[in-house]
């Protein structure tokens, strides 16, 4: 009994022999998992990792037992870092998970969520088969019944109320191909009422950043932070939200001695690792940034030459910033003047510095102002377009960047083409469809070109009378295709909206809060979707790199991959042929690679054209050849390419563009990922040149700024003779001279421009003044629910307006003083163990065990005033009438007057558990109040981002 074999001397009957005997069929998956005890011997990693991981302290030798262990490489589905997951699969069962040491992104590391993704293969709390709610009871139905019944109901709504009465709520959990397909699916259905989580996550970033310099994405990469001399992080908590990113940040802190500054209302786990922590009042980001910039300008620390060459409108910024004296900044933000000055000094003297933000900055009614203010600070310091600098915007979900890029949004077709007629025609060409056919699918041309209702406002799309909406009828049907409703504010109203709907469809691996929140007794359908581990395809990480996932296991139970479900519904709706015109279908599964190839043919704007499935698979295969800092392959078959071909990866796959690791970097040629700012806003405004001056990517034959490339421009330059005949033909087909780099389906214009060292999208200045926005120069505006009534007069919010089809209130809310009854500021954020609405992670026992109670962080001062002890229950009331019963976590982590709640919980509503409303066996292990039950009204003035980071509340002992 006590005979312990010496480690390393593997012999004796191997588990596999037991297995192969049992695999006849008698063995069920669970038994198999429990029996699994082996793994292929990992090849010893020779080189020490840059951050000093210990590996193979003593490679003990003979491990690898013979067996049919297959290693499948996939990517974690929990955040945008894109950690490689190496799955060990034996006979179709996921038996083990190994660290993906080769991945430049995670170097083997994971956070709690990534280290537990294998639990997906247990899937005990998964939604196991299609179900419908009938007389208040969940009833199991078949897929055919489900598709028929749901299809009939939605078609009936379409018939009676028009296509815009069904809302297709897509997901950041789709892979790129599915995201692209669902946008096409919505177009064929005939509505722009399609959206996804990015709306309530980084929509203000995408809008703000894209309108500043062209593209709305992280400009550099997690790895590039290694080169930073300073990290300024505002409104983000990567230690919990992107833990593996912290590896790169700590690496910079230790190796390059980067100064690490965290600005946040909460002293987060990240702040605990910082050199300097600035606590400021929620909702005062613009004031704080202008406060820093005030010192920079006051001392002349700005990069004047950089501004002259590459920045437009800086004088307007100077004028605004001049108002933000240290005294005023302290009055508004609460940050001591001396600290602001110290930070400004640090930022000016430690370059390049990177600026990172997350949802703390975006989720405000003036979120677009926040994001632009951050960008402007970086421009002033000359930190843009340099390695180690940039705005490193950490996206949330694993593929929220991709889903945004592929237009799972109410205001654009894939690739940010928008909704104009020309955009529709471009995509009609790519899809091989008639423009007129597409038009016929819509209620009208006007509705075809009008932005849809954003996900943050679907509630109002249901509850508002049709005459208040800028669409023919209110919403009657709602399809949650991978979305947790508890991640949205105003849950009590959402409950009403759900009850008012005709049909509620939930397509998800888990039932989600959508299945239990309302008191409906009929007309709710649950369709089990497969996770990304049960299908394959590409996903775009935060740094714009695409990674190809392999399928780890077959879909569990009766679940199906999203694209199969889309195809089923397309058949039901009668547009299956149109949906897959260029795509081969195996059984009912559209072939993923064909979808990739199709979007390669249309995504010219942001350079999703070079990433063919073949290239992406090679990148996964040769992960180890990429440098862990530059992301560039050193030698090997992919020499010189950037890992995952971060977009823009210009031209066709055959052109083999390297991808672009750092945006707007003029120190490298365009062919190797260099570029200036995008010429997106014209060539001049009010007589001022918008194009770059004395700045161009090295190797450019045009040594100046230039507009975006068109056929006419090529001709003018005489470069059109470089086009091949095929390219010329393709260009003629889309309009000859008027064809441009975005519409040329051959990629010829891009190819020729790059051959001459030019970026296809032009070479312009970044604009600090966005004249198309409500606040051309970013302004501080008090949150709708502000405790500082004294500041409302000086910094009022916007006037009420109707946009995105729904009436939206600003001033009419802010004019009321809620602060008397609701004296505390309420903000929200993430926990490392959970993600999003949390239905998936709270169903994973390995994670759920670690966070079993919903809580609110309260400062001891406020807790004592309210008579609440640590660990006790408290009622938190929001000014919209919602209330939650949560545990008190009394801590100095939050400042006086601020209460924090994590937003991952659900399944308890205003004190009442909804556990018995879940389909049996599919209830998450941990339930809790949703912070959004108490969260309030308030939407960004450009993107309808919800304002969850600064509202009000009152706490009472329960």
């Amino acid at each position, binding site marked *: 009994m*006590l005979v*312990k*074999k*010496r*480690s390393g*001397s*593997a*012999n*004796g*009957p*191997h*588990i596999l022999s037991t297995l192969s005997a049992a695999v006849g069929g008698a063995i069920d998956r669970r038994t198999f998992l*429990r*029996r*699994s*005890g*082996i*793994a292929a*011997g*990992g090849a*010893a990693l020779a080189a020490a990792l840059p951050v*000093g991981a*210990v590996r*193979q*302290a*003593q490679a003990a*030798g003979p*491990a*690898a037992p013979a067996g049919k262990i297959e290693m499948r490489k996939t990517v974690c589905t929990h955040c945008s870092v894109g950690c490689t997951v190496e799955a060990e699969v034996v006979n179709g069962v996921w038996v*083990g*998970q*190994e*660290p993906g040491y080769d991945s430049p992104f995670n170097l*083997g*590391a*994971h*956070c709690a969520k990534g*280290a*537990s993704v*294998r639990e997906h293969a247990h899937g005990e709390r998964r939604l196991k088969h299609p179900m419908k709610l009938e007389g208040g009871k969940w009833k199991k139905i078949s897929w055919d019944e489900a598709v028929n019944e749901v299809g009939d109901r939605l078609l009936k709504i379409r018939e009676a109320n028009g296509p815009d009465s069904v809302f297709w709520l897509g997901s950041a959990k789709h892979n790129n191909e599915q995201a692209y397909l669902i946008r096409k699916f919505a177009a064929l259905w005939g509505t722009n009422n399609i959206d996804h989580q990015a709306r309530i996550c980084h929509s203000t970033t995408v809008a703000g950043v894209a309108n500043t310099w062209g593209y709305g994405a992280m400009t550099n990469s997690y790895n590039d932070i290694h080169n930073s001399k300073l990290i300024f992080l505002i409104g983000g908590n990567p*230690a919990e939200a992107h*833990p*593996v990113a*912290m590896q790169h940040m*700590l690496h910079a802190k230790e190796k390059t001695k980067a*100064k690490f500054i965290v600005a946040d209302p909460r*002293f987060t786990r990240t702040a*605990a*690792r*910082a*050199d*300097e922590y600035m606590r400021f009042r929620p909702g005062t980001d613009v004031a704080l940034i202008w406060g820093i910039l005030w010192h920079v300008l006051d001392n002349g620390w700005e990069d004047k030459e950089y501004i002259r060459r590459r920045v437009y409108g800086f004088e307007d910024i100077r004028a605004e910033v001049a108002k933000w004296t240290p005294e005023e900044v302290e009055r508004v933000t609460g940050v001591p003047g001396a600290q602001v000055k110290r930070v400004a000094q640090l930022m000016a003297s430690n370059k390049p510095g990177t600026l990172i933000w997350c949802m703390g900055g975006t989720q405000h009614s003036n979120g677009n102002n926040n994001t632009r203010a951050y960008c402007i600070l970086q421009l002033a310091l000359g930190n843009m377009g340099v390695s180690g600098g940039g705005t490193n915007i950490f996206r949330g979900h694993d593929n929220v960047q991709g889903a945004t890029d592929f237009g799972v949004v109410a205001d654009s077709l894939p690739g940010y083409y928008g909704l104009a007629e020309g955009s529709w025609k471009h995509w009609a060409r790519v899809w091989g469809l008639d423009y007129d056919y597409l038009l016929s699918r819509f209620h009208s041309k006007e509705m075809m070109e009008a932005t849809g209702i954003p996900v943050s406002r679907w509630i109002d799309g249901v509850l508002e009378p049709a005459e208040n909406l800028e669409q023919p009828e209110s919403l009657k049907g709602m399809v949650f295709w991978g979305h947790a409703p508890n991640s949205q504010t105003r849950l009590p109203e959402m409950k009403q909206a759900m009850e008012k709907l005709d049909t509620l469809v939930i397509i998800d691996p888990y039932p989600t809060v959508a299945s239990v929140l309302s008191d409906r007794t009929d007309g709710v359908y649950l369709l089990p979707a497969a996770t990304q581990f049960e299908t394959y395809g590409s996903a775009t990480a935060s740094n714009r790199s695409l990674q190809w996932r392999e399928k780890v296991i077959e879909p569990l139970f009766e679940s199906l991959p999203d694209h199969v479900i889309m195809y089923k519904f397309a058949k039901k709706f009668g547009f299956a042929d149109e949906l897959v015109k260029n795509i081969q279908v195996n059984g009912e599964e559209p072939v993923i690679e064909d979808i990739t190839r199709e979007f390669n043919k249309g995504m010219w704007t942001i350079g999703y054209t070079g990433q063919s499935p073949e290239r992406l698979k090679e990148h996964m295969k040769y992960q180890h050849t990429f440098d862990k800092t530059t992301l560039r392959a050193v030698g090997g078959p992919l020499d010189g390419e950037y890992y995952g071909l971060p977009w823009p990866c210009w031209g066709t796959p055959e052109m083999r563009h390297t991808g672009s690791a750092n945006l707007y970097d003029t120190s490298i040629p365009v062919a190797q990922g260099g570029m200036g700012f995008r010429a997106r806003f014209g060539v001049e405004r009010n007589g001022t040149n918008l194009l770059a001056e004395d700045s161009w990517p090295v190797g450019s034959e045009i040594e100046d700024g230039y507009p975006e490339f068109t056929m006419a421009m090529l001709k003018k330059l005489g470069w059109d003779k470089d086009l091949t005949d095929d390219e010329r033909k393709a260009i003629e087909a889309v309009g000859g001279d008027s064809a441009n780099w975005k519409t040329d389906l051959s990629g010829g214009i891009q190819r020729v421009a790059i051959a001459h060292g030019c970026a296809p999208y032009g070479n312009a200045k970044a604009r600090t003044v966005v004249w198309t926005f409500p606040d051309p120069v970013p302004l501080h505006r008090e949150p709708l629910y502000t405790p500082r009534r004294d500041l409302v007069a000086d910094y009022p919010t916007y006037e009420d307006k109707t946009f995105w089809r729904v009436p939206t209130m600003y001033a009419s809310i802010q004019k009321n003083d809620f602060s008397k009854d609701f004296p505390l500021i309420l903000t929200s954020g993430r926990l*490392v163990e959970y993600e999003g609405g949390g239905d998936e992670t709270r169903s994973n*026992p*390995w994670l759920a*065990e*670690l966070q079993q109670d919903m809580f609110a962080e309260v400062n001891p001062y406020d807790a004592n005033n309210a008579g609440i002890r640590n660990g006790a229950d408290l009622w938190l009331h929001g000014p919209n009438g919602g209330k939650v019963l949560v545990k008190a976590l009394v*801590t*100095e*982590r939050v400042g006086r007057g601020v209460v924090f709640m994590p937003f991952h919980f659900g399944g308890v509503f205003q004190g009442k558990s909804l556990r018995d409303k879940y389909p049996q066996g599919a209830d998450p292990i941990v339930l809790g109040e949703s912070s959004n039950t108490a969260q309030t009204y308030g939407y960004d003035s450009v993107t309808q981002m919800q304002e969850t980071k600064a509202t009000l509340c009152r706490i009472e002992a329960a």
Partner: protein
Amino acid sequence: MGKMVFLCDGDRCIECNACVTACKNENEVPWGINRRRVVTLDDGTPGEKSLSVACMHCSDAPCVNVCPTNVIYHTNDGVVLHNKDGCIGCGYCFYACPFGAPQYPQEGNFGSRGKMDKCTFCNGGPEETFSQAEYTKYGRNRLAEGKLPLCAEMCSTKALLAGDANEVSDIYRQRVVERGFDSGAYGFSQSFGQQQKL
């Protein structure tokens, strides 16, 4: 002969709990048993520091000493393992352990303990290496496969190190030297001073 150790770098650990779930994953550790846990000191205040804790595989292990049935032992690699067959769930190893490592399923009579469970350094147990019995009772035997414990391999910030004592301390020393120069100049990194004494 090597001596396996864990080391948690408190200046790196961010309480992401990857080590905890990696352990659960690799060894199918049941609900309620935490072979590894992360403790945060001074939570929410400047000086906050997290440490990941499990069995430290002490060379002079009190559990080995106290066990009434003498089922806890050292391997050649200095890993402390135990034989669950002989464990009577008395809980004495938990009383003796400085780190609170031993865990017990609540399956005994009157809610008392079942057989002790603890971190095995991913080295299985006394059953035959790679056997089903070994996996069921103790979890994976990664060491025998030539791999290190998964908790350390998956640590998000490489705070948790595992491996031969000399190599681990070399890496840690190197880090301390690197940090040394500007430490203390800013903010909360007050622990640097103490570490330099190493």
